[in-house]
């Protein structure tokens, strides 16, 4: 324990009076690479929010005279279309900027839905045990048996395209990841004496699960969810690449990569720049979440 522990008077100094969360955030800020990555993620988010202000052109405006125009620094390029134009003469930069909205919105929405379901199911399975645990755990096992992308493709084929359907198709399986994390942590935490103390005081099962256990297992869940968000963004891009995701003419990175497939040798920029955008965002989220994990979970710090 800290030296301040000898008297509660000393313990009340501002430095000691910080919560565990603040201490973790300080650790996170000390990690340079993770901090830079977090800034990159924030820039992407800002770009998505301010898309109409940042994008030089309407992402859906076609200009047949500029079909497959190369990026500005190549011969035939122009700075009004910095990353060139696609087969319909649409500005690639503007479409990437608008595509950020789709990637981040779907990624965040899927993770939000999946994590909420996963937390509730995991808490119920881990704390209530018995048949609740058997039912939830078997369902998780069954869902884990399906290949993710093929499962999502099947669902999209059944439900038809559309933003809400994409989110549902991905969340259908995504919730098992936070669910397993939460269940495992709950199994450990439920045996701790402070949980027993709450039961001895007459606390309800709902209170114990949501107020006593959940705050103590949230760190690993947040970490896993951020890592998974990168994965979901790739999955959305994959669905859109296959034509099952966001429907044209809405700009989506996966669909843009698919659009350039036919001319990848002559007009490489059509596929490459949206691909780089996917890479950058996913990489930044991964590195930032790695930093989060190190800061929040002492078991993983090296």
């Amino acid at each position, binding site marked *: *324990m*800290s030296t*301040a*522990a*000898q*008297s*509660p*008077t000393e*313990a*009340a100094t501002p430095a*000691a*009076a910080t*919560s*565990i969360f603040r201490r973790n955030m300080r650790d996170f800020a000390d990690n340079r690479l993770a901090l830079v990555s977090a800034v990159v993620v924030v820039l992407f988010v800002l770009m998505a929010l301010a898309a109409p202000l940042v994008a030089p052109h309407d992402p859906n405006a076609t200009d047949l005279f500029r079909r497959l125009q190369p990026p500005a620094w190549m011969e035939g390029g122009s700075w009004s279309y910095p990353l060139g134009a696609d087969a319909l003469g649409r500005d690639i930069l503007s479409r990437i900027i608008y595509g950020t909205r789709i990637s981040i919105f779907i990624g965040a929405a899927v993770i939000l839905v999946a994590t909420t379901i996963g937390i509730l199911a995991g808490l119920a399975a881990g704390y209530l045990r018995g048949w609740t645990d058997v039912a939830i755990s078997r369902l998780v096992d069954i869902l884990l048996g399906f290949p993710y992308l093929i499962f999502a493709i099947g669902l999209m084929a059944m439900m038809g395209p559309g933003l809400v359907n994409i989110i549902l198709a991905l969340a259908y399986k995504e919730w098992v990841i936070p669910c397993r994390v939460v269940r495992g942590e709950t199994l450990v935490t439920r045996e*701790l*004496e*402070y949980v*027993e*103390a*709450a*039961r*001895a*005081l*007459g*606390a309800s099962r709902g*209170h114990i699960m949501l107020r*006593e256990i959940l*705050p*103590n297992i949230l760190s690993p869940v947040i970490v896993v969810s951020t890592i998974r968000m990168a994965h979901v963004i790739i999955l959305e891009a994959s669905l859109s690449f296959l034509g099952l995701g966001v429907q044209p003419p809405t700009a989506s990175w996966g669909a843009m990569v698919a659009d350039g497939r036919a001319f990848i040798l002559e007009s490489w920029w059509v596929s490459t720049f949206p691909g780089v955008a996917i890479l950058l965002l996913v990489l930044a989220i991964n590195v930032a979440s790695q930093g989060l994990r190190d800061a929040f979970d002492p078991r993983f710090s090296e």
Partner: protein
Amino acid sequence: MSTADGDAPLLSVEGLSKTYVSRPGFVARMAGTPDTRVQAVSDVSLQIGRGEILGLIGESGCGKSTLGRTILRLHEPTTGRVTFDGTDVTALDPAAMKAMRRRMQIIFQDPYASLNPRRTVGDIIGLPLRLHRLATSEAELRDRVTEIVERVGLKARAVDLYPHQFSGGQRQRIGIARALVSHPEFIVCDEPVSALDVSIQAQIVQLLLDLKRDMGLTYLFISHDISVIGYMADRVAVMYLGEIVEQGPVERVLSDPRHPYTQSLMSAVPEVHPQGPHKRGRVRLTGDLPSPLNPPSGCKFHTRCPLAIDACRKVTPATEGVGPGHSAACHRLSERLSLLDPDDAPAAP
């Protein structure tokens, strides 16, 4: 003070048993592997009078903590009955049990595990008041929390801090404040000082005694430390492998222990003057506590008892009275043997 006064006891435990059943996995079950049963507490009966401290003593793993938790129905008893102030606690429905929990509380052994690290001390201590709606306003709640925080010897500003900002002894005071803020009548003290430094132990023991006097409390005080029990308790119950082997007023049990297990526990207490005039015999128990998975037949202590005879291996001894309020369960009680008397102790093998 004790039940001998003729008052109805505050707490009465009759034939309480707790068996844990662990079922093997599906495949093993199909292959005929039977369920594993651990009888942690077996057929325990005891009574605690209002305002009394009953010390419960025994080795680690003998079922002391399980008994305390089963009395509070933190674990459901397998058989037996717990009566608190005339109410059969074991038969209460969940709503009535919740109301009853305000009156029976527990203080835990490990002050690091027993406080939720994510909640402030004020939240932790205020929880019982919130759960039982004992405060009409936030201001009153805060006043009552502050009052009990100061009563257990902490500064009022402690309510805004987190548990990790306190030492073990201070955390134990927080745990005591949480148990007492709802003004319960009965407290299970589950080894509340065993995890603390010796210097802190004395402070916490004194605090518990002061609080008992001021608030009219009744304690079941679980410990493996005979000196703490001797200092605090009015009566003492000795537990071995889930059973109470001897029970009685503390001064009688500690000065004239009748069960060979109690005698061996007493002989393990270091003497202040080992070369003094009253040199007593030393009993060295061989072997470990047998596994409760496969408890010995007859008297459960026979595997380690220096006085064991054939009957001990076959017949479970009945509990007999050996003095006012003093009882023990041993086949050789009538012979009045004492392992502490060098004349009676068998020669070392």
